[in-house]
């Protein structure tokens, strides 16, 4: 007689207790509907530029199919160090301060596992990308959410950080430009946060995967701020700016002792990032700037179109300044984020992601990715417009300056406002 294995009981409780992804159920729903326009895709709609794909094909022809060093190809690390220096004037030694990872996802996981002891607290701005909290939890840490809000343009403030610090706080996670809100963070705010990080001995893990997709103002790299290079693990990659999501190529840059510790986990679990992806990333850095700029210019045009469309529809939305997401407020429709997304999918066949998939603070919002063709965006927002019209019965279009709702006259607050786009 054999004993039947109950696999549910076999699952590590830490894994079991991680809540299921708020996005997964929409994936199941959408497969049942035909003719859906998806604004739910968090990756560029461009295919990787041909010169990058071609460089990879050439390398395969030449037989580059082997492991690389655990750290990743030195040539690529040198190119990354040059890129960071040229862009932000921060120097990293390519020999021992940069590790090539399989995307930022692996870098994040490695950073958390290398940093956290059981019960260490990780400060995570919310709304935020879905992986941060689970990665912290899986590493034994405790996520502590810093609730950013639309009133402040979803920017993290020093005050929010300060108030959340306890004796167990070890890590502050930063993620600007932000997924899902499209928010960027001002240098002034970052400087104030940096001061606290230094004063309170926090390690900052900064996911800057959208840095090049900044449309208003300039991105400030966290490690370029005074005193921050020593206490920042900088995570970045090639997925968004170079349309290379599926390649899985990223990197972590930071203190050599820490990078060496991260590499220890990396060498036993991943060994190295795929050589094909590394070669492609090298080509992207060496010759990819012009194509990248074209893609970014296109995202920026779409961003303006989306803001224009939202204004027409009458859905309030603060101006996204980076990434490729708009995060309109939908509470005026009288629905929760979940209900809104489900109804919109059912009635108009447009897929958006409910804001609460990115944390409680996302409730009342939906994420619309504008990484879609202009024709699709046009049609999607026409449909969203019809949906809203039906929900509201009447339409008001109001205008105000983004991010300062306290200045809106009280009688116009009821839900139907949109700001200017630049």
């Amino acid at each position, binding site marked *: 007689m054999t004993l039947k294995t109950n696999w549910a009981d076999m699952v590590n409780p830490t894994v079991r207790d991680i809540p299921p*992804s708020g*996005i997964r159920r*929409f*994936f199941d729903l*959408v*497969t049942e509907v035909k003719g*859906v326009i*998806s604004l*739910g*895709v*968090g*990756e560029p*709609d461009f*295919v990787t530029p041909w010169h990058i794909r071609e460089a990879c094909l050439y390398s395969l022809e030449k037989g580059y199919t082997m492991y690389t060093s655990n750290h990743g190809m030195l040539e690529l690390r040198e190119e990354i160090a040059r890129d960071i220096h040229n862009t932000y004037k921060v120097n990293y030694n390519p020999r021992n301060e940069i590790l090539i990872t399989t995307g930022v996802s692996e870098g994040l996981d490695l950073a958390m596992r290398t940093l956290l002891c059981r019960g260490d607290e990780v400060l995570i701005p919310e709304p935020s*990308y*879905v*992986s941060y909290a689970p990665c912290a939890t899986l590493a034994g840490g405790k996520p502590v959410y810093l609730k950013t809000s639309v009133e402040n343009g979803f920017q993290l403030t020093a005050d929010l950080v300060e108030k959340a610090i306890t004796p167990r706080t070890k890590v502050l996670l930063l993620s600007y430009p932000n*997924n899902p809100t499209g928010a960027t963070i001002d240098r002034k705010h970052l400087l104030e946060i940096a001061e606290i990080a230094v004063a309170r001995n926090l390690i900052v893990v900064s996911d800057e995967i959208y840095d090049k997709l900044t449309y208003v103002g300039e991105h400030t790299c966290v490690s370029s701020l005074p005193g921050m290079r020593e206490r920042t693990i900088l995570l970045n990659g090639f997925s968004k700016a170079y349309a290379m999501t599926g390649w899985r190529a990223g990197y972590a840059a930071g203190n050599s002792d820490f990078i060496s510790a991260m590499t220890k986990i990396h060498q036993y679990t991943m060994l190295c990032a795929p050589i094909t992806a590394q070669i492609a990333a090298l080509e992207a850095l060496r010759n990819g700037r012009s194509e990248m700029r074209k893609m970014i210019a296109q995202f920026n*045009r*779409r961003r*303006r*179109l989306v803001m*224009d469309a939202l204004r027409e529809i009458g859905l309030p939305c603060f101006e996204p300044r980076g990434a490729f997401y708009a995060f309109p407020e939908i509470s005026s429709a009288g629905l929760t984020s979940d209900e809104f997304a489900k109804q919109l999918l059912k009635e108009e066949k447009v*897929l958006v*992601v409910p804001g609460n*998939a990115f944390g409680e603070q996302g409730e009342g919002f939906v994420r619309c990715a504008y990484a879609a063709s202009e024709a699709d965006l046009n049609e999607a927002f026409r449909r969203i417009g019809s949906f809203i019209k039906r929900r509201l019965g009447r339409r008001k279009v109001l205008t105000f300056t983004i991010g300062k709702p306290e200045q809106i006259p009280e009688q116009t607050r009821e839900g139907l406002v949109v700001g200017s*786009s*630049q």
Partner: protein
Amino acid sequence: MKEILELLESDAMLTPGRIAAMLGRDEEEVAGIIKEMENNKTIMGYFTLVNWDKLGSEKVNALIEVKISPQRDVGFDAVAERIYRFPEVRSVMLMSGAYDLAVMIEGDTMKEVAHFVSFKLASMEYVLSTATHFVLKTYKQHGTILNDGEEDRRQVIVP
């Protein structure tokens, strides 16, 4: 101005309103700029890129390499002008290298193109020689891959 032209070059159907929204500018201002560029012939026309193969079209295209002897004062321009005025000629470019003019011809049949080359082009004064290359297949035109198989293969929802 350059941005407006780039947008129109990629999609001639874009309205001034849409272009204005994309660039964060005023619609009237954009319409005015376009009008001005039409008037001063910076914008020469609005065309549709057609993949005639989809209709099973039998149209014949050929690239003719033309060697000519340049003329005093006007160089190659006078001969080029005589050539490009023929409606069969789709484009004419002055080239560096082994020949002087690259002439693209379109005709309904191969015979028609051959007739044009031998009776109109090759026999023209100052034309020294021609070499005719018939187009077998067009893969890409005006920056657009015809029969492009690169569809959207992304998952419908990605965090």
